[in-house]
């Protein structure tokens, strides 16, 4: 990780919530200032169920088109009532600012006729400072 990305990550630390237990994802809003061509957001997906589930993190633009962001980790198993940090690094793509949605998706009960996919999306605004 370059010093610049380290700085961008450090800026994202301000978004860390005070408590993330039993939330599907927090925070759900945020603005990040970055001096590089990327900005970073740390989110905390949580599993409110009493069983282990698989969680996937996706990043979309304002039109729900996928964004080529680096997500660490993008998919993982999360234990009951557990939460873990996920680092999302979003490129500005040459723009001075970028709005993205970071979404936590889970499918806890497969093999039913009508599955419901719960999706919790946070809106994040990155500003590129020169």
């Amino acid at each position: 990780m370059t010093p610049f990305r380290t700085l961008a990550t450090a800026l994202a630390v301000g978004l860390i919530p005070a408590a993330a237990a039993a939330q599907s994802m927090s925070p759900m809003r945020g603005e990040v200032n970055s001096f590089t061509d990327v900005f970073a957001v740390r989110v905390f997906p949580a599993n409110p169920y009493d069983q282990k589930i698989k969680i996937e993190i996706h990043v979309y633009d304002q039109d729900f088109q996928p964004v080529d962001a680096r997500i660490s980790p993008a998919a993982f198993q999360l234990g009951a009532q557990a939460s873990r940090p996920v680092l999302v690094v979003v490129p500005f793509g040459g723009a001075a600012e970028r709005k993205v949605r970071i979404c936590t998706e889970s499918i806890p009960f497969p093999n039913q006729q009508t599955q419901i996919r719960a999706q919790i999306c946070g809106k994040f605004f990155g500003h590129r400072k020169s």
Partner: protein
Amino acid sequence: MKLFRTAFGATLLVACLGQPASAATQNVIFNGTITPTCTLVIATNGTMTVSPDLQTLSSHNSGGSAGTVTLTTTGGVSLSVDPVTATTVPSADTTSTTWTPTYSSAGAHSIVETGSATAISTPGADLVSVHLAGTKGGSNRFANGNYQATVTLRCE
């Protein structure tokens, strides 16, 4: 001398009576900020049944059931469903189907069944019912076999 000391002490004691204690006080300020937060917990998935004319496969039909999801939020969020894109149909079904997801809510927020996004501005907990209906037009009919579809319920 003894009398003088007694008189002096008594005078000093009287002079101190009625004087407030000079203890310092400071307020301790607590701040807290809650950003919009949303939790969705899927309680049950839904079941669709076919209509007598075999042109509607829906959770609204007799024997069908809605999927249920508990929503807990601080407010300042919106609830919506995505168009259905992932479906599994039996090989005998070769005709197109129009899928329409909808939802309604009861609890802290009453939302009449809709397919559009709903802004939720106040905190509370709700039971959200998610419905799905597939329809065929013209002379097309649903076929024998297993159908499966995924509805995405989004809180953002």
